[in-house]
């Protein structure tokens, strides 16, 4: 303690600069409660996370302008997953934190791909920042107790060229539904940066 204090009072010895570049957007840790939120969906209906307690919830950060999102929608990656897990009580919510998009953009995207889930309007980026959503798509899975069970990529193939991708989200949902620990519970998400409001 004392030495570090001494180090601090001699800043004039330090020529140059010290930059602290801590990332602003840090996701809540896996195993911790998922931050609650209320957002409007593309029909103008309110959706509150805490009201879904008891169900497994998947959050998908989306931006219709992002080529990674477009690739997965053309391949129906999210739609097929959401449909196949819906019967098992899994709720899928897409969240759009793109600052220049609104409920109408979300409605159009939902219609274009006939989505079985709502797209929530987070154009002010509050919920995105709360979750530390960085790219689109960035995926979060919340267990029935409301704890964060998975955060990261949709699958193992950022460039979409691997042919055989591991679906991390399907893997995590299968483990959760079997009451097993999710592993890996964290992967590196990939995609375009979330276009947050400044």
């Amino acid at each position, binding site marked *: 303690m004392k030495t570090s204090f001494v180090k601090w009072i001699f800043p004039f*010895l*330090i*020529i*140059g*600069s*010290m*930059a*602290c*570049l*801590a*990332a*602003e*957007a*840090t996701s809540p840790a*896996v195993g911790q409660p998922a931050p609650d939120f209320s957002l409007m969906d593309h029909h103008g209906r309110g959706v509150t996370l805490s009201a879904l307690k008891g169900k497994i919830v998947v959050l998908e950060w989306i931006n219709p*302008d*992002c*080529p*990674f999102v477009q690739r997965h929608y053309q391949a129906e990656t999210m739609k097929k997953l959401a449909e196949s897990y819906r019967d098992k009580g899994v709720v899928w919510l897409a969240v759009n934190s793109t600052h220049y998009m609104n409920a109408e953009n979300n409605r159009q995207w939902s219609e274009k791909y006939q989505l079985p889930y709502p797209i929530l309007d987070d154009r002010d980026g509050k919920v995105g*920042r709360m979750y530390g959503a*960085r*790219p689109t798509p960035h995926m979060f899975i919340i267990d029935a107790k409301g704890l964060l069970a998975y955060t*990261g990529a949709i699958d193992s193939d*950022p*460039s979409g*060229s691997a042919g055989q991708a591991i679906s991390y989200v399907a893997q995590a949902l299968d483990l959760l539904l079997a009451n097993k620990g*999710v*592993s*890996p*519970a*964290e*992967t*590196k998400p*990939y*995609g*375009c*940066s*979330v*276009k*947050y409001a*400044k």
Partner: protein
Amino acid sequence: MHRLASLVLMAVAGWFASAAMNSITLAGQSVGAPSGHVRLEIFADVTAVVPGQPFSVGVRCRIDPDWHIYWKNPGEAGLATDLRVTAPPGFAVAAEAWPIPERFEQGPGIVGYGYTEEAVFLWRVTPPRTLRGVSRIRLIADGRWLACRKLCVPGQGQAALTLGVGTTSKPANGELFKAARRRLPVPAGEPGTAARVRVEGSIPVSGSAGRFMVELFWSKPMARMEWFPGPAPTLEITDEGVETEFRTNRIRFSARRLAGQPLPAAPLEILAVGVDPSGQRIGVAVEVRLIPQPIKPESKGRVLD
């Protein structure tokens, strides 16, 4: 249809290239329509291929103003640029280090690493010892990338270069290769390297996170420094900071193994970049071993001189 069109264009470009060969063929241009805000050009540092004599090939990415493409670790968003050079069978093609990238913010706290304006990637090409009956060879650069400004657009392109085969060759494109090499990092500890490096820290075998310090003693004072963690898909790098004390820089960061992910067996590669008072960027590639290493009793940390 589009594929056919690009094949025709390739053939035409090849014809032009070979027609120009009687003088000197120095550069191959993009083949096909440019897409995705980047154009590729391919160069060799020789005027002809001599059997058994290695030469260098450079691929220049010309990036549209305000757009960027990505380094091998794109940062928190983006996609690593994928460039390849292919030569005829029997030739060995080895990529050199990626040029030193820039750091940019892609939104609040969303860091990216990559290139703006232009980036030149280099390859070492070794021809076979004999090239009987071959009068010319064709080198092809293939690229796939994600270009971003406010939005991101995936792109791909090709460039091709035809070189004659001879018994002698002259150097070519010297300035271009010289400038490109100045933008490549050097491995720490190489003779004449700009910096001595010392690394401290590890992730305990039983734990998931560790604090690291990479200290660089530059051979000349630097105005400032930057650093870039290499690709590490199973790690989260946080709490980074850089200190400058005359000729010494210290990079501090925490590395945490993502939940349920293995510790990478390979060292984490980091790129330390000193910017000298003239603005010249000098990159030193440092390997950081993540798991504890046996250390000599008389030294703290490891000195890679």
